[in-house]
């Protein structure tokens, strides 16, 4: 019974004195009387030690039970705190992932478009613009070539007008000569003179018409030239701006792809860190489960101490103190040693309550009794 050994302070003996055998009947023998008196003193001391030991066991049981509850409460609080920490870490990771996704996207109406998709859309729009510009330029060049053809035809028509004017001048000269010859012929040439005058009038009309045609051809030529210039303006677009825009879009796309890779790496890091934190917390929480084993061990210790206390009480009941001895007294020397061994103020206060009064103290210890760590 190790507990008994520790709590026995009887003049250096390792074990408490065994319950004394039945006392010899009193007699007039002084030696026997002295022996009886010593035996009663030993029995009384054994009772005091037994009572001290019983109360000490009660104090130990109460202290262990309190400590057990305190550990359970604190560990339970710690597990809950770690669970909240784990939840917070997961929520923080989720929020960060959502933030990174928001950074990488753009809301357009009810659509969510990623930035690289936006750049591709802009590239497509640029391609559409370029395609329309080229189609317009091609159609303008078709018109220019058509106008060139019209101008060529017009040039040939103008040349024809020149031919008409040359023929007309010859006709006029011919009519003039005919009139001279008709005058020389006298009356016989009067009819011929009439024809010559008609030819001259016809030549004058033809010349006037040729002049009008030349004027009209010149006007058409000016219109053609104006149209050609306008078509040239339509057909000619400097594509440098498109090239600059394309270069900018390429750079943006490249930058976005680079940033997306960086964000992906960051998210991977975050996920790894989050997983590691969660695993650590889970492992820590699992280690906290040691309280179940500790609780069982402490309960066992309490049961053993209670058994010791009951055994002590039973032994004391089996061997009552000698008549005239005050029952339920403790051994002052033993109590003092136990309290001296309690170097923690509040523990000493509770042990003092149990050992000196047989119950836990109802009042809190004075502040001066509590050591601060």
């Amino acid at each position, binding site marked *: 019974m190790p507990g008994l050994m520790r709590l026995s302070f009887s003049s250096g003996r390792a074990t408490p004195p065994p319950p004394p055998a039945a006392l010899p009947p009193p007699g007039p023998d002084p030696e026997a009387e002295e022996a009886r008196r010593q035996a009663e003193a030993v029995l009384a001391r054994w009772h005091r030690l037994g009572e001290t030991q019983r109360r000490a066991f009660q104090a130990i049981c109460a202290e262990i039970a309190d400590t057990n509850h305190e550990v359970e409460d604190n560990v339970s609080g710690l597990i809950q705190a770690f669970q909240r920490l784990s939840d917070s870490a997961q929520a923080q990771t989720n929020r960060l992932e959502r933030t990174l996704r928001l950074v990488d996207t753009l809301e357009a109406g009810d659509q969510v478009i990623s930035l690289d998709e936006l750049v591709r859309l802009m590239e497509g729009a*640029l*391609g559409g613009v*370029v*395609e329309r*510009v*080229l189609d*317009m*330029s*091609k*159609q*303008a*060049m*078709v018109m*220019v*070539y058509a106008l*060139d053809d019209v101008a060529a035809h017009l040039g040939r028509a103008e040349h024809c007008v020149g031919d008409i004017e040359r023929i007309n001048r010859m006709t006029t000269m011919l009519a003039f000569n005919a009139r001279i010859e008709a005058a020389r012929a006298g009356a016989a040439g009067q009819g011929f003179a009439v024809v010559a005058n008609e030819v001259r009038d016809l030549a004058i009309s033809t010349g006037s018409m040729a002049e009008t045609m030349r004027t009209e051809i010149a006007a058409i030529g000016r219109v053609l030239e104006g149209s050609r210039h306008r078509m*040239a303006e339509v*057909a*000619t*677009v*400097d*594509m*440098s701006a*498109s*090239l600059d825009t*394309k270069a900018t879009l390429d750079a943006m796309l490249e930058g976005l792809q680079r940033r997306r890779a960086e964000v992906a790496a960051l998210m991977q890091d975050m996920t790894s860190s989050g997983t590691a934190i969660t695993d650590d917390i889970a492992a820590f929480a699992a280690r906290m489960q040691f309280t179940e084993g500790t609780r069982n061990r402490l309960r066992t210790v309490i049961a053993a101490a209670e058994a010791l206390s009951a055994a002590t009480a039973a032994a004391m009941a089996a061997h009552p103190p000698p008549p005239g001895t005050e029952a339920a007294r403790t051994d002052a020397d033993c109590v003092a040693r136990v309290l001296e061994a309690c170097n923690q103020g509040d523990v000493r206060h509770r042990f003092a309550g149990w050992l000196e009064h047989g119950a836990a103290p109802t009042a809190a210890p004075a502040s001066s009794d509590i050591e601060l760590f």
Partner: protein
Amino acid sequence: MQVKLTPGLGGVEVAVSGTLTFDAHAAFRQVVMAQVDQPGAQPVLLDLAGLDYIDSAGLGMLLLAREAAEKRGRGIILRGARGQVARILTVSKFNQLFTIQP
């Protein structure tokens, strides 16, 4: 714009140099379009290595040349474009319309 015609095994090779803008449209029609608008099984090879600059009018002329060649059942190869000309051919997605060679 300057145009040089070189007879080859696959037909006449047309080398265009300088700048291909609206001002060159008459010469382009007279020489290049005339070569393209010829019957033949071989594609027309346009060497653009000497071409320094091209604008939308020049691209429009190339598109007209392509149409004329298609009517003859021929294709057009654009070879050796560089610098601004190469970049603008890329932006205009001419690789979808012509055979582009380096």
